[in-house]
């Protein structure tokens, strides 16, 4: 007998299988729509029937006792304001049964995720029961519970292994991301902070605030967003390229037979990795602060005076980290110092695997070192480290440490519109987001920016990986 169920994976086959199972199943399959254990009970798989029944009961209890407290309020995110009365007898404050918008949002979302998972299991259950019916009708062996269990250690072992990671990803990644997305559509900010105040849905207005443009002094978010996005991309590009190229050049230099005490040099460069960034960056920040060592030296050798005379600066110090332009360049330079050793390590590893025969033949053909680098070393490096380069770029978009530690408390914007949006010229999207939540409790705008960061990262990753994996790259490199 031909199998009416599709064995393909995917959403389409899943639903069509469910339809087939419901349409063609016998009474026990159809009863499984209501009582999830029915089909198993009919095939004498009593343990499974019990488990499914328990699951069903659990889902119903969860719905009644947990979800129903929150989900009905999901549309309004709560209406009962907190009110208090002091009780002189107990010396305690007594509260009414007030709504907490955030809890409603979070637990409703959690309920939706649970329901979604339950419905998937429920549909899958019907298909499984139908599959059992087919086996029984074809006179094939129907597994006992012990045999089923054993299969999870055998041919279905991958399922056993993946259960925990998938659950972890769902609870710790999917739920927070969905929560972030939901908050972007609310007015959750300092004026609407639970538990005392309620927040509610506001539709797309936060997105309009951010993307609607306009540089009015009163609402600078659109203005600041464009500039910060621009700097974020410029920074990522420069931070990635400078350290990448610098790292390769440095490792070539340290691999060169002309250099003495190579190990010593390599170790010295590793020291910057050994010192935590938190320490080295804060030190750098102090070196280059308005009254730091760098400024003292520049003032003593007359550089500060010279720059003042030619009109490059208007202050009595060089604003290394406190004026736009200066700070942008300094941040990239300091990042080179911090980033090169990492890239050097990677490049050294790759270069050691450079096919010696190609270098040999290039030498015999009379190629000079530059030509060898340009046509053999570099293409090979790019081929091997291409994906890592893309990852680096995306990582730099979110490079919180360098920007935050170097500029926090030091850099103050002189642009009123930026200041009104609580932004600075040297902010990355992610540091701006951090300060909006940390200092201003502006969770709604931070969520919108978070979504934007996600979109930017996703777009760049997709484009880059698509281009990289297109065609036979190995052939091109050869």
């Amino acid at each position, binding site marked *: 007998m031909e199998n009416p169920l599709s064995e393909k994976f995917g959403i389409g086959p899943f639903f069509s299988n469910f339809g087939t199972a419901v349409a063609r199943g016998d009474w026990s399959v159809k009863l499984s729509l209501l009582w999830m254990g029915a089909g198993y009970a009919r095939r004498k798989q009593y343990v499974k029937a019990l488990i499914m029944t328990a699951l069903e009961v659990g889902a119903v209890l969860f719905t009644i006792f947990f979800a129903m407290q929150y989900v009905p309020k999901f549309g309004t995110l709560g209406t009962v304001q907190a009110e208090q009365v002091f009780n002189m007898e107990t*010396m305690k404050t007594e509260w009414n049964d007030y709504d907490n918008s955030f809890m409603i949002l979070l637990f409703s979302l959690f309920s939706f995720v649970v329901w979604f998972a339950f419905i998937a299991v429920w549909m899958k259950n019907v298909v499984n029961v139908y599959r059992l019916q087919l086996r029984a009708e074809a006179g094939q062996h129907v597994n006992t519970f012990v045999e089923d269990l054993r299969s999870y250690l055998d041919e279905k072992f991958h399922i056993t292994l993946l259960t925990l990671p998938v659950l972890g990803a769902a609870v710790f990644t999917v739920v927070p991301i969905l929560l972030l997305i939901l908050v972007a559509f609310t007015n959750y900010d300092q004026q609407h902070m639970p538990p005392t105040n309620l927040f509610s849905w506001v539709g797309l207005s936060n997105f309009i605030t951010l993307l609607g443009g306009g540089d009015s002094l009163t609402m600078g978010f659109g203005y600041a967003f464009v500039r910060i996005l621009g700097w974020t991309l410029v920074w990522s590009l420069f931070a990635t390229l400078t350290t990448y190229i610098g790292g390769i050049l440095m490792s070539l230099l340290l691999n060169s037979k002309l250099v003495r005490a190579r190990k010593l040099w390599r170790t010295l460069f590793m020291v910057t990795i050994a010192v935590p960034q938190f320490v080295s960056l804060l030190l750098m920040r102090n070196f280059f602060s308005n009254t730091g060592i760098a400024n003292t030296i520049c003032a003593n050798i007359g550089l500060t005076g010279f720059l003042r005379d030619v009109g490059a600066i208007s202050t009595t110090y060089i604003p290394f980290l406190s004026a736009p332009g200066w700070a942008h360049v300094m941040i990239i330079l300091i990042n080179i110092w911090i980033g090169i050793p990492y890239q050097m390590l990677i490049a050294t590893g790759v270069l050691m695997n450079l096919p010696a025969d190609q270098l040999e033949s290039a030498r015999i053909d009379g190629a000079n070192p530059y030509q060898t680098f340009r046509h053999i070393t570099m293409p090979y490096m790019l081929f091997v480290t291409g994906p890592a380069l893309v990852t680096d770029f995306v990582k730099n978009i979110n490079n919180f440490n360098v920007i935050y530690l170097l500029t926090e*408390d030091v850099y*103050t914007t*002189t642009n*009123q519109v930026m200041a009104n949006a609580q932004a600075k010229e040297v902010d990355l999207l992610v540091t701006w987001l951090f300060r909006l939540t940390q*200092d*201003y409790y502006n969770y709604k705008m931070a969520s919108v920016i978070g979504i934007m960061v996600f979109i930017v990262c996703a777009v760049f990753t997709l484009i880059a990986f698509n281009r990289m994996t297109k065609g036979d790259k190995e052939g091109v490199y050869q």
Partner: protein
Amino acid sequence: MKLKKILALVLAAVMTLALAACGGGNTPSNDSSTPSQSGNNDADAPASGSDSSGSGETISLALWGGEEDQDLLAGRVEAFKAAYPDQTFDIRVGVESESTAKDTILTDIETAADVFAFADDQLADLVDAGALLSIDSMDQPIQAYAGKSVADIKAANVPVSVEAATYNGTMYAFPATADNGYFLYYDSTRITPDQAKSWDTLLDAAQAAGSKVGMTLASGWYLASFFYGAGFTTGRNEDGTTTMDWNGTSPSGVTGVQVVQAMQKIASHPAFLPVTDGDSSNQIAAGNVCAIVSGTWDSISCSEAFGDGYAATKLPTYMAGDKEVQSGSVAGCKLMGVNAYSKNSGWAVLLAEFLTNEESQIARFEQREAGPSNINAQSSDAVKANVAQAALGAQSGFSVIQKVGGKYWDPSKSFGEQIAQGTIATDDASVQTALDDLVAGVTAPLG
């Protein structure tokens, strides 16, 4: 072998301790610091008798105060327990700086401490978020247990400190100190008291001495000094927005443009050092300045750096147009508030009251040199003899309570930085435009 076992045991014990410390809940940083533990150990001393409140249960309270106040608070907590011997307490003291209390509390009000110290500029935000219990509404328990009324407490503290603890006509916290303002420290070996009277002579004297005068400009708190002095004001509306008149003309006939031009003149003086907010102690210790605008928190670093020349006075005057204007300042107070979501709000109020009463304020001055807000405590000879307190007193006639909304801080900070960096042209039109931009940003609606 045996040694190894012992080592393993010790390590396990340390781990458990560390875990226990972490498990302390959402309290910030080192909740398990020594004072809190000493507080715990003594909690079981008095057996709880059935007192007037009729409850024999142990009252658990969490108290947050600045790191440098930990010893003081631990001592006062013991005194509190002794003052209410009929009740058993379990009071934990945690570290939370007064300047950042708001940020930690608003992150999760329901798990924050029952009683916490904070600077008065955070009061409005805390009240708006519903984090503070109204003290006015707690008159009954205070009368029943502490033997005084809220009105008595208001009368016992200087009016400015009560005003700082009041928002929309309701008192939301107990004044703990009245010293959170700024004034001028200077080195009298390099600058004479006369020279310290005006910005012009002060800067010239500093230049002649080869040193500098420091002040934070990139901060709405310090920046306001020049404007408040000239009679300009700020205000906070009920919806949390800010009002500001700095781009106009003040009641005393000074225009905002004249004030900014005076500031530009000061900032561009070679002997002026713009200090980054919070960096003043470093500048003093590094010997970069011979005079600095700062507050009582820098009194120890200044007295160490200036040695015998250590002196303090009110802020200097400046010339706005052809008028001499006395710089104003922001009168700040440290307050002790009670979490509105406290599980034991009654006793929390009594603890906060006790920690800010006359006796506690005197202890606070003796141990921490913090200027009291209590009128009786203020009049003690020790307080009067203190250099920094005297300067604060001299400045107090020109200080105001700063009432601003959340949108005030960033634009004004940026404005101060623009003056510090000299990015605004000094002609009238440019300054007026910059001021208009500042006012537009500060008075913007929230959103």
